[in-house]
């Protein structure tokens, strides 16, 4: 035999034996060697190569060894069997598996979407280089009370005095602007004014121009890509000129669009006109947001400790000049006054200090709330799984018994059931991802975000998904696994394990599910009650018939003529102008009462003309409103809260001052009215009079309030036409006051909608589980019910017994849920100054809803069982 010294190469044969199923080995080898022997007679080398190549060509799925053949002594074969049994079980009990997978999938979907939402909230400003060393400097006017606006000189002086600060920038914004390009007028939102150092603190990619050359002279502007396209239709617009408010601005740079997840979502940046303009307020005027970037390795705490000295050195003198009656700065501080600056890390702004954000505010409470809800939903789905697995354990008892008899140890049985639950979770995750992708548009509507489906597949999300599979698999699988694997083989094979698991644990879990359901419904109720409470609040002013025209300054000296023409229209009852508008953010100014014991107040400060009272529909309680004469500039009208805080018996004739030499005389008192969201109660308010409202208004003021009656559509067209005849080249812009008030509650509404959606989902999953559990219980009690009926029980009596069993669980769940929801609900409501108190019906209705759902699910199943002929149940064995 030649086999002792074969002339064909040996190693390809070894390779073949390594990967090829042994069953095929001999035949393949024989054929290969035969071909080799034949070819080698003609060309030895070629024969060798084709021999190797032929071996490689046998690398086909058909011939490759499977797992257990590669490692015959491992337990891989067992895993394969577990997998097979799992699939068979799913196929055998389709409805049960469907409920399980569907319930888990819905839970995972909610979880996934919430995770996406939350992790997005965590990404804010993270794209900014060195974000960790960037801080927002804010005003601390009382310990712990922070003001967003800071003096114009702050950043400049800090940079000069403290080497720890590498660079800094002043920002003011965001505001809308109307740009004139060629002959067109285009409104552009989200602009800001900033120092040229903005790109040192917040570097961004330049598409045209350089960070060094941008914004370093007045009347220059940097546009983002999309704005450049909107205004010019192209990107390369360096040196182009746009006009705003009559000033020409030269484009000195084009940058990429800023990402959405930033607290500084600017669309264009204008240079600070000139330093005198910026710093005319000195240290007591707070006109800018200040950002500083610390040098690497700087000591922030050390820097904070230097702030009191800084305040004393630069600001104390100006403050003492304003608040008279203090001999020294120490006296001022000793009197309980406070003035400091705080450093807020940039990365903390979005969630921890949302009021400091220039963009859309984040909300940490919402993030926490939704994390908890996501957890709840998953828990409910897991409980369903646990309940159903243990309840149906009798069906698996024989398998467990048989496996044990065949030599399986408990450990591998536990492993089997854990693997089984992980496979089911895997199916649920796949289904959950599909559902998530499908409902993403609705989720976007709900959250008013625009997530793309790709965000579900980022590294982080995938990591989460793997985590979910493992955690749910373990969590939901562990109890059934330990329980099922504990069966004694003999009893299991006898079929005596019919108890269906420890019913106490199962009952406990169901109670817990109900507790969560009741809690979520109660939460939904409280949120909605509060929202409707706030939005139906008695405002004390007329909002539904008032249209507000913005940019009143564009009318210039033609305002009176404009007003007269409007009033000639019968549909327009009254026209009044104000520096700001209710619901739109009103600044508070410091005032001091004049008298023996001066009181310092910071009332909301509104400049108004003499028609404002009537237009807004305010109620005058005492004295008179402005009469429209020049001497009115020395008069003020205050609200009742002001009177109360000032502690005046008779407010008319009292005097207030602002630190300069001017004094104002109170001539009238109006009833309190609401100008802010329901989060705040009514504060002191003061009306001032000025001959030129433009001077004291926001950039888009003064606001012309117009009281309309009858058909407003027609009147709006009329207003717009009138505006266009009076103002050339500036678009008509305005809104209804009640819409503006409505928008104050947008965030709460969004919260409410999300809360409701996920509550409904949670309850849905819980009722699916309840239905399955009821079905199972009834199946087990079929004979009992039949015997009861034979012995004379009526169907309704039987139903009552079964339903009552479940109702007891609901009551137990409710007893747990009530104190928790009372506590958390109260906590949430404490965030509102104008709030509801928690009434008993807020608990009773949810309990009734959950009870009704339970009665319907259980009742339906028990009705079917109870109405069945007892013979059917008794005769089957």
């Amino acid at each position, binding site marked *: *035999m*030649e*086999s002792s010294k*074969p002339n*064909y190469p040996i190693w390809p044969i070894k390779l073949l034996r390594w990967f090829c199923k042994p069953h*095929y080995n*001999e*035949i*393949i*080898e*024989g*054929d*290969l*060697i*035969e*071909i080799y*022997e*034949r070819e080698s007679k003609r060309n030895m080398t070629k024969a060798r190569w084709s021999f190797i190549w*032929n071996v490689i*060509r*046998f690398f*086909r799925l*058909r*011939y490759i060894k499977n797992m257990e053949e590669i490692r015959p002594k491992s337990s891989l074969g067992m895993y394969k069997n577990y997998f097979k049994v799992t699939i068979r079980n799913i196929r055998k009990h389709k409805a049960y598996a469907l409920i399980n997978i569907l319930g888990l999938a819905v839970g995972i979907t909610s979880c996934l979407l919430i995770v996406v939402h939350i992790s997005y909230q965590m990404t804010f400003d993270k794209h900014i280089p060195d974000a960790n060393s960037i801080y927002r400097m804010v005003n601390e006017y009382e310990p712990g009370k922070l003001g967003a606006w800071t003096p114009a000189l702050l950043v400049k002086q800090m940079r000069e005095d403290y080497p720890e600060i590498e660079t800094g920038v002043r920002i003011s914004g965001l505001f809308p602007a109307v740009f004139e390009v060629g002959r067109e007028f285009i409104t552009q939102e989200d602009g800001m004014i900033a120092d040229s150092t903005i790109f040192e603190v917040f570097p961004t990619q330049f598409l045209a121009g350089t960070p060094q050359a941008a914004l370093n002279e007045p009347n220059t502007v940097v546009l983002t890509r999309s704005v450049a396209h909107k205004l010019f239709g192209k990107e390369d617009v360096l040196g182009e000129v746009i006009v705003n408010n009559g000033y020409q601005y030269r484009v000195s740079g084009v940058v990429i669009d800023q990402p959405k997840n930033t607290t500084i979502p600017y669309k264009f940046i204008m240079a600070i006109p000139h330093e005198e303009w910026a710093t005319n307020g000195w240290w007591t005027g707070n006109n800018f947001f200040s950002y500083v970037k610390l040098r690497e390795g700087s000591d922030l705490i050390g820097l904070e400790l230097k702030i009191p000295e800084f305040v004393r050195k630069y600001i104390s003198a100006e403050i003492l000049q304003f608040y008279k009656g203090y001999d020294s700065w120490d006296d001022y501080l000793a009197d309980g006054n406070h003035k400091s600056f705080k450093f807020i890390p940039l990365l903390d702004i979005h969630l921890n200090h949302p009021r400091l954000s220039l963009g859309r505010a984040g909300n940490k409470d919402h993030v926490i709330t939704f994390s908890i809800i996501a957890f709840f939903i998953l828990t409910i789905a897991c409980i369903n799984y646990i309940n159903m697995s243990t309840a149906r354990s009798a069906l698996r008892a024989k398998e467990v018994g048989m496996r044990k008899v065949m030599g399986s140890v408990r450990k591998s049985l536990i492993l089997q059931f854990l693997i089984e639950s992980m496979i089911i979770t895997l199916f649920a995750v796949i289904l959950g991802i599909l559902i998530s992708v499908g409902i993403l548009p609705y989720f976007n509507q709900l959250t008013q975000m625009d997530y793309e489906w790709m965000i579900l597949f980022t590294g982080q999300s995938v990591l989460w998904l793997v985590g979910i599979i493992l955690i749910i698999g373990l969590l939901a699988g562990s109890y059934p696994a330990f329980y099922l694997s504990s069966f004694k083989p003999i009893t299991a094979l006898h079929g005596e394990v019919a108890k269906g698991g420890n019913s106490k644990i199962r009952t406990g879990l169901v109670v817990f599910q109900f507790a969560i359901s009741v809690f979520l419904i109660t939460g939904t109720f409280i949120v909605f009650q509060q929202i409707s409470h706030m939005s139906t609040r008695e405002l004390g002013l007329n909002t539904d018939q008032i249209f507000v025209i913005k940019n009143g300054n564009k009318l210039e000296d033609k305002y009176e003529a404009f007003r007269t023409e409007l009033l000639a229209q019968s549909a327009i009852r009254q026209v009044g102008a104000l520096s700001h508008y209710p619901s739109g953010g009103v600044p508070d100014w410091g005032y001091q009462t004049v008298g023996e014991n001066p009181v310092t107040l910071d009332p909301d400060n509104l400049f108004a003309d003499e028609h404002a009272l009537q237009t807004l529909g305010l109620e005058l309680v005492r004295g008179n409103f402005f009469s429209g004469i020049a001497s009115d500039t020395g008069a003020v009208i205050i609200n009742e809260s002001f009177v109360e805080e000032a502690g005046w018996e008779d407010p008319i004739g009292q005097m207030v001052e602002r630190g300069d030499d001017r004094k104002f005389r109170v001539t009238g008192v109006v009833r309190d009215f609401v100008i802010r969201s329901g989060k705040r109660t009514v504060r002191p308010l003061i009306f001032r009079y000025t001959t030129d409202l433009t001077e004291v208004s926001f950039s888009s003021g003064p606001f012309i309030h117009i009281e309309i009656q009858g058909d407003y559509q027609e009147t709006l067209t009329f207003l717009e036409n009138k505006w266009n005849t009076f103002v050339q080249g500036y678009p008509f812009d305005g809104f209804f006051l009640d819409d503006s008030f409505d928008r104050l509650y947008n965030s709460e509404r969004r919260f409410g909608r999300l809360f409701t959606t996920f509550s409904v989902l949670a309850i849905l999953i819980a009722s699916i589980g309840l239905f399955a559990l009821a079905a199972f219980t009834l199946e087990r009690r079929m004979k009992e019910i039949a015997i009861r009926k034979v012995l004379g029980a009526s169907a309704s009596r039987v139903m009552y017994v079964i339903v009552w069993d479940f109702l007891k669980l609901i009551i137990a769940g409710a007893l747990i849920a009530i104190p928790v929801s009372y506590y958390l609900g109260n906590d949430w409501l404490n965030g509102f100054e104008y709030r509801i108190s928690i009434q008993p019906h807020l608990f009773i209705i949810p309990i009734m809803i959950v009870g009704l759902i339970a009665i319907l699910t259980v009742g339906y199943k028990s009705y079917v069982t109870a109405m069945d002929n007892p013979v059917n149940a008794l005769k089957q064995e």
Partner: protein
Amino acid sequence: MRRVQLGEFEELVLLVTAILHEEAYGVNVMDEIERQLEKKPNISAVHTALDRLEKKGFLTSYTGGATPERGGRRKRYFKVTNLGIQAIEINRKVRNALYDQIPKIAFENA
């Protein structure tokens, strides 16, 4: 009449196996295909096709005939089953029936 589902190469291997009658095994089938079609298939492809045909029930096999050229390994001989014969005949009939329906003009114009 329904054609029996067979891949093109499978059908070829089935026919060749039938031609070789009792003598068909891997290398042999490969050689015969080369001889008849002047195109040499890879031995692994022949094996795969033979295995598939056996699984479909068109072939049976038995082992035997170890020779020194094979390093003492046995051959696996394949034989066409009755089902295989039927499949060959059905496919042939279908093919012929279709062929016969082609109008003469189609050949003339081609």
